[in-house]
């Protein structure tokens, strides 16, 4: 039987000098962290948790940014047998009050025993605490115990069972923070084993990532997978990357990076925003798999990325695909490793109206669908119609899956867990089809906007916009519109207002932008204010959003 602590112990004893993580910070020397460093740092935190009265099986909430404290405190929790969960740090855009209320609602459901943060953020965290809540200790990073040799005989993490929960994974936003995906040691280890096979992972591999660790793609593929399987990881800060995307290429070139995972928008972002001068001497020929994952994958984005970087050694075969979700730990499918990614050219109208993926016909509009690949060995995928019956190849339905790496449940949310399954099959909420054993994802059943790989719940945004004076109460709708140039969705808000005065409307629109940004850290692309009655109302929020989105798009087309 194996748990995280057993895997870590083996590296500590057998290859202590091997570098687990090269930690990068803009303007600083890279920090190599060996397995010895990692385990000693983690042991210091394990001792800190014990001192603070955290019990094995308790949840500890980490509110830390990219850096060594986050790594040590994470694995410290594992060694102590506690359950780590990472909460995104407050950004300058978000209102502190909003952050506090999101934190308070997470605390109410997840009930962590301790919170770990920086000294200068302690006050902010304490402000969210209430009399009688679960938090017994707020630990500041500067007061954690010094790194120390781990005593595996006494560490409670060594006593955990494979079926015990090892970590929680939250999605972002007010709604997402209330649903923590609880994963067991066994589930994660099963996923890593089958994903390792799918990727043909070897000793030569090096993972390079800028992804935040509070996201499943960052946490599993670009943190736990390399560290627990002994693949060196070069970890950049998401904050640095978004301001200087060339840092990803420089890191790959410098360390001979072979594997990366990126949300679709990042292909466009890198292609458009990296200058030649920052690519001087860059060699990307070591990159063997850059997996597009976590938002709808676009053929056009792969082309743009390839065209931009092919002169720097990028190989077209390195552009791979993956379909993943936290509820399955991570990967459901992987494409592009054993054979190039299949591009399925299908009839646009067939997809949108008849809901079938018919091969394209000359002179009719086609969509180039990128295959997400085949299910990895531990996962089975079905496509179901509305009556929960299997549909034939090339018919669109809801993707459902079964695997040996499913979530234990949504933490403290048995209601939500029960709703997610049908006869032992997890309903993904994603629409797609299968063809020749390959999985294609075409859209979402869940009412969700994905912006730059981040989940945005439209109801959260609508709730915020409704509070702006001048907006008709309840007469607001939020939806996503695909932006070809950005390779991701833009968030649009439509609101009904009484005033026809243009300056007044500008003011209201600004207010909506500000309230939404400060309340959700999401920047709106367009605030469209209209005369009542404009909004189409239906019984379901989702159909209303779709109908209003169509109306909006039609009006935009007219105005152009």
């Amino acid at each position, binding site marked *: 039987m194996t748990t995280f602590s057993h895997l870590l112990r083996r590296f500590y004893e057998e290859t202590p000098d091997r570098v687990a993580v090269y930690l990068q910070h803009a303007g600083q020397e890279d920090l190599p962290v060996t397995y010895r460093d990692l385990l000693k740092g983690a042991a210091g935190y394990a001792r800190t948790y014990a001192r603070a009265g955290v019990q094995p099986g308790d949840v500890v909430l980490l509110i830390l940014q990219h850096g060594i404290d986050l790594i040590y405190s994470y694995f410290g929790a594992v060694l102590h047998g506690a359950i780590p969960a990472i909460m995104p740090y407050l950004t300058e*855009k978000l209102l502190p009050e909003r952050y506090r209320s999101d934190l308070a609602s997470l605390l109410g459901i997840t009930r962590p025993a301790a919170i770990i943060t920086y000294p200068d953020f302690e006050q902010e965290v304490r402000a969210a605490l209430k009399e009688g809540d679960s938090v017994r200790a707020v630990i500041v990073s500067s007061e954690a115990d010094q790194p120390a040799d781990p005593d595996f005989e006494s560490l409670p993490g060594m006593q955990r069972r494979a079926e015990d929960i090892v970590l929680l994974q939250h999605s972002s936003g007010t709604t997402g923070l209330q649903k923590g995906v609880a994963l067991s040691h066994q589930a994660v280890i099963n996923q890593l084993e089958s994903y390792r096979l799918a990727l043909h992972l070897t000793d030569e591999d090096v993972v390079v990532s800028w992804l935040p660790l509070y996201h499943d793609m960052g946490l599993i593929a670009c943190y736990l997978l390399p560290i627990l399987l002994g693949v060196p990881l070069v970890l950049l800060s998401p904050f640095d990357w*978004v301001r*200087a995307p060339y840092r990803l290429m420089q890191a790959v070139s410098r360390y001979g990076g072979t594997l990366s995972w990126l949300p679709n928008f990042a292909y466009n*972002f890198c292609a458009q*925003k990296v200058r030649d001068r920052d690519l001087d001497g860059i060699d990307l020929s070591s990159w063997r798999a850059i997996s597009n994952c976590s938002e709808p994958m676009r053929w056009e984005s792969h082309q743009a990325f390839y065209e931009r970087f092919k002169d720097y050694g990028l190989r077209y075969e390195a552009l791979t695909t993956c379909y993943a979700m936290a509820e399955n730990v991570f990967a459901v499918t992987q494409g592009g490793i054993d054979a190039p990614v299949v591009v399925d050219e299908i009839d646009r109208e067939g997809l949108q109206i008849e809901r079938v993926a018919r091969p394209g016909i000359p002179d009719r509009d086609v969509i180039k669908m990128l295959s997400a690949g085949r299910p990895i060995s531990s996962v089975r995928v079905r496509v179901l119609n509305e009556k929960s019956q299997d549909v034939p190849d090339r018919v669109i339905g809801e993707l459902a899956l079964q695997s040996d790496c499913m979530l234990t449940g949504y933490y403290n949310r048995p209601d939500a867990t029960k709703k997610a399954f049908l006869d032992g099959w997890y309903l993904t909420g994603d629409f797609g089809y299968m063809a020749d054993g390959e999985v294609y994802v075409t859209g979402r059943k869940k009412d969700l906007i994905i912006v730059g790989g981040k989940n945005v719940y439209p109801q959260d945004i609508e709730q915020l916009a409704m509070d702006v004076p001048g907006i008709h109460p309840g007469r607001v709708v939020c939806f996503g519109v695909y932006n070809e140039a950005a390779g991701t969705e833009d968030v649009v808000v439509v609101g009904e207002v009484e005033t026809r005065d243009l300056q007044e409307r*500008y003011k209201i629109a600004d207010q909506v932008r500000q309230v*939404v940004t*400060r309340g959700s850290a999401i*920047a709106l692309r367009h605030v469209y204010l209209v005369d009542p009655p404009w909004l189409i109302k239906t019984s379901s929020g989702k159909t209303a959003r779709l109908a209003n989105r169509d109306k909006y798009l039609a009006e935009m087309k007219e105005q152009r």
Partner: protein
Amino acid sequence: MNDISTTLNEYIANEILKQPGRVINPDEPLISGGIIDSFHLVDLALFVEDTFGVHIDDSELNADTFDTLNQLVALIQARKP
């Protein structure tokens, strides 16, 4: 409004906010106020470099270096070759 300010205002209104004609208050917080999100900071830096020949390092792309239009204009004027 000087030329730098006008040029920046036009760029932000047209390219970032997609609201042509939108007048930006020179003292309005752009970064901390959410008008320019982090994904557009690098665009703005590239635009400033191409238009005014002023380099803003990526480590400076935060509200501490500049947040308002006025502060950005001052930064450009101070560094202009």
